[in-house]
């Protein structure tokens, strides 16, 4: 009796998000593709063929069995092809590539073992978001001349820190001028570049990636005169850097896991510079209401040392700061105590995820004279590890969230006192400068980027078509988000630094090209909403900008 076929534990390739197209004729069987595949979605195997052939002057068909070496896509959903294209990149003969399958049923089949699907990466929404629908339509031409983006001097910096209202400035008349009352407390304020690198931790990022970003930021500050800053994310930073003069380019993040803070606190007496700011993380846009998670296989020796934890354990930060039970405590106590740690010389601000309750947080901060800013992370933000349902279905788009917060401050006359930092999907379609400028004109003092800089500076494979998304697994095929030396050696930190600098130079030029025709060069056009329009009535109404079609 013939043995029953038992393939029911497998899926047809049509269900998979990416189908690997392999050419038998072009493949020279070198094995590089199967070696490099980060998820083992392809494997070398053999195929037994029955071949009928004929030799001699008369047809004399004979059958023979032949064994052929092939590359096969695995049909186990646990090893689905993520479409990263590492195989295509290493193939010497263009014999293999993944092809996106829009009819895939990944989400239907992915949840096995009762554990909900987690992934890293982006939101995977290929649609055009609000930021990319906005246009700059207030162009000076005839009524008044436009500026020359190439020749005018532009001031493209912004302020991070609590800014005193003009009525409360500690000034006194002094010999026909004004002098500052030396006794008065003036909150610390930093002049920074309006695009900052958002919080991505040592641990989430590989050593060369984090180092590359840091080197790029230092170069931008010290050689290019661009005061770009970056946030450490949770997990602290290398102790040597904490005691270096470069610390002033970094925003130290304290999140609910407090990872890395033992080292930071210990280093305070030895710090030769103050950090740029302290960011208290209460939420992140990609998984609002959820804590951070660095998965065990990324917690290797270096990371464990910096964070002060054992090797190889999941590092879960709770969704809230566990010792705080109310907004008064969370905001007032944490901000005050962190400010005090640095002698009130360092701006301290919270970061929350985009949410309908953002205004409640904002209004609380507006009344707290030590709150230095509010950072809002919209739903398009990326993350190291998040449940699929959080990433896809939770959150608030940044544009409207930021706008209503800004207009709330305007109503209170505090739009300049509490800077807003916007994040989440800035540069999602590659339009970094345009997205940043639009958010600034909607009321942001600065924007944060994360995914964009990984894509631009380290050639991250991911896109909005569910591609790659391996950031959380420690198997990043580019070496960006992995602690595996075999993988992160693929990434050259010098090259990353170089690309960081190039990326900011380009953004700088593009910002000028946006602001110059609108006649703005002396000050960042924060809240210049008359410069924007959109061909969507609902968006125009919601953002209180012009409708133009």
């Amino acid at each position, binding site marked *: 009796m013939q043995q029953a076929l038992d393939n029911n534990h497998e899926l047809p390739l049509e269900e998979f998000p990416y189908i690997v197209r392999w050419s038998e004729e072009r493949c020279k069987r070198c094995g590089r593709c199967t070696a490099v595949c980060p998820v083992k979605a392809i494997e070398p195997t053999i195929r037994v063929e029955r071949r009928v052939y004929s030799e001699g002057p008369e047809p004399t068909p004979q059958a023979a069995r032949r064994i052929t070496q092939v590359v096969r896509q695995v049909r186990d959903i646990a090893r689905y092809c993520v479409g990263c294209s590492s195989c295509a990149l290493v193939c010497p003969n263009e014999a293999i590539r993944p092809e996106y399958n829009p009819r895939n049923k990944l989400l239907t089949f992915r949840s096995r073992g009762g554990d909900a699907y987690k992934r890293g990466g982006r939101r995977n929404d290929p649609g055009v978001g609000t930021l990319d629908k906005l246009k700059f339509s207030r162009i000076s031409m005839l*009524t*008044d001349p436009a500026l020359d983006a190439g020749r005018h001097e532009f001031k493209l910096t912004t302020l991070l820190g609590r800014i005193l209202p003009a009525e409360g400035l500690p*000034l006194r008349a002094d010999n*026909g*001028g004004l*002098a500052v009352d030396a006794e008065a407390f003036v909150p610390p304020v930093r002049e920074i570049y309006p695009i900052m690198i958002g919080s991505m931790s040592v641990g989430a990022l590989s050593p060369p990636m984090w180092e590359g970003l840091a080197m790029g930021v230092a170069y931008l500050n010290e050689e290019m005169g661009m005061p770009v800053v970056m946030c450490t994310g949770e997990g602290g930073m290398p102790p040597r850097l904490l005691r270096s003069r470069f610390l002033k380019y970094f925003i130290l993040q304290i999140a609910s896991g407090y990872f890395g803070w033992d080292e930071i606190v210990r280093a305070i007496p030895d710090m030769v510079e103050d950090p740029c700011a302290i960011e208290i993380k209460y939420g992140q846009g990609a998984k609002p209401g959820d804590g951070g998670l660095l998965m065990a296989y990324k917690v290797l020796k270096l990371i464990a040392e910096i964070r002060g934890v054992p090797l190889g354990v999941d590092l879960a930060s709770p969704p809230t700061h566990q010792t705080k039970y109310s907004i008064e405590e969370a905001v007032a106590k944490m901000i005050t105590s962190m400010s005090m740690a640095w002698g009130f010389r360092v701006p301290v601000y919270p970061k929350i995820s985009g949410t309908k309750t953002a205004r409640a947080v904002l209004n609380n901060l507006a009344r707290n004279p030590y709150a230095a800013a509010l950072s809002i992370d919209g739903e398009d933000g990326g993350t190291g590890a998040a449940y699929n349902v959080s990433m896809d279905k939770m959150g608030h788009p940044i544009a409207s969230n930021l706008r209503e917060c800004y207009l709330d401050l305007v109503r209170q*006359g505090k739009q300049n006192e509490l800077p807003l930092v916007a994040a989440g999907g800035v540069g999602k379609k590659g339009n970094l400068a345009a997205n940043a400028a639009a958010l600034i004109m909607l009321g942001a003092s600065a924007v944060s980027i994360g995914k964009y800089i990984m894509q631009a500076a380290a050639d991250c494979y991911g896109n909005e078509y569910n591609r790659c998304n391996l950031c959380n697994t420690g198997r990043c095929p580019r070496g960006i988000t992995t602690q595996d030396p075999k993988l992160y050696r693929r990434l050259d930190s010098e090259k990353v630094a170089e690309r960081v600098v190039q990326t900011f130079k380009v953004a700088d030029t593009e910002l000028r090209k946006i602001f110059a025709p609108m*006649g703005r060069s002396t000050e960042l056009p924060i809240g210049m909403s008359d410069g924007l329009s959109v061909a969507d009535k609902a968006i125009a109404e919601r953002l209180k900008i012009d409708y133009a079609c």
Partner: protein
Amino acid sequence: MCRLAAISSESYISPLENVLALETMKEGHDGSGMGLMLKDLGGEFEELKDYPILSGICSQSGYRALNEYMQGLGFEEKHMWSPPVRPMPGIAKRDYYFAKVYQYPADYAGKPRAQKEDLLLRTRLALRKMGEADESIVVFSFYPDVVTLKEVGDPLALGEFFGLEKAGLSARVILAQGRQNTNYAINLYACHPFFLQGFGTMTNGENTAFVPIREYLTSRGFPGYMGYNSDSEVFTHILHYAVGRLGFPLTYYKDIITPLRPRECDRRADRGALALIRSSLRMLTIDGPNCNIGFLPDGTTYMVQDSKKLRPGAVGGVPGRYALMSEQCGLESAVPRRDRERDVFPMKYDMAIVSPRAGEVRVWNQLTGAFMESPEPSGAGARV
């Protein structure tokens, strides 16, 4: 681009001189309107300097409503001036043009100046609101010793329309703007100069930072920061806010609207104050291109440019009579007998300040934070 003509004088002068100066600069404006603002009044107003003057335009019904409202508040009309209007082709005559001098309500007699100013402001805004829908009441200023006239039409024709040569109007400080209507529909409230509690300004150019500035000012909670039919109205309000409310010396107005770069601030003795002002008032940074001319309650006049110096502007004259013009030909018209070598063309860092009663013109330099030495006239070519 609008043309601006301001004259500061020791003796009382007729606004016709400003109109003639505007006429020489005619190619700069298309005659879609003119605004005149007179401060430190002579003639029939000379003896009435302590009494508030309400300047405006009314329809018949508006006029009745205005009088009733003012009586209701307890304002007693003390004197009334109206121009000897002569109909002119192209100018649509309205029913009443007036400058009414009032006695304060009885219960305000002994009250401090601030409370009186508050009353005048609230009254003007209420009248403006009453007549805004049907344009039955248009009020430009309500303040002691200040008269404002505005109308749609060519400046020279308007001079004739208002009969300025025999209207008996004269003042020591007169601002006039010939309008070029580019951005907005013709609206008398969009016509310069603008006035608020002793501060008057006029501007040409486009203020590209208008919306954030408007939002900042309106959120100060001060009722006078409203209107904004023109993007230039914010210049008056920034001046009022900086000098009037915050009590800063006039030169800080320049530091607010065109802040120095940080490295430039380091050269100033007051760099600490500058850094604070620069942060706290960054929303009030104008981005030009603008030439801005204005006066203060004490009769000081000034000219200031945007930080890119994209507009022309010239200041010159002789002690006792200085003119601040957007074109040099306007200066020629207003003060032909002067030493041209001493003419000032304020550049991006400069603020030309004419002391009250046209005592002298001094140039304050933002980079040094000090007044510049007056250059000696070269002699050659000087015509005094």
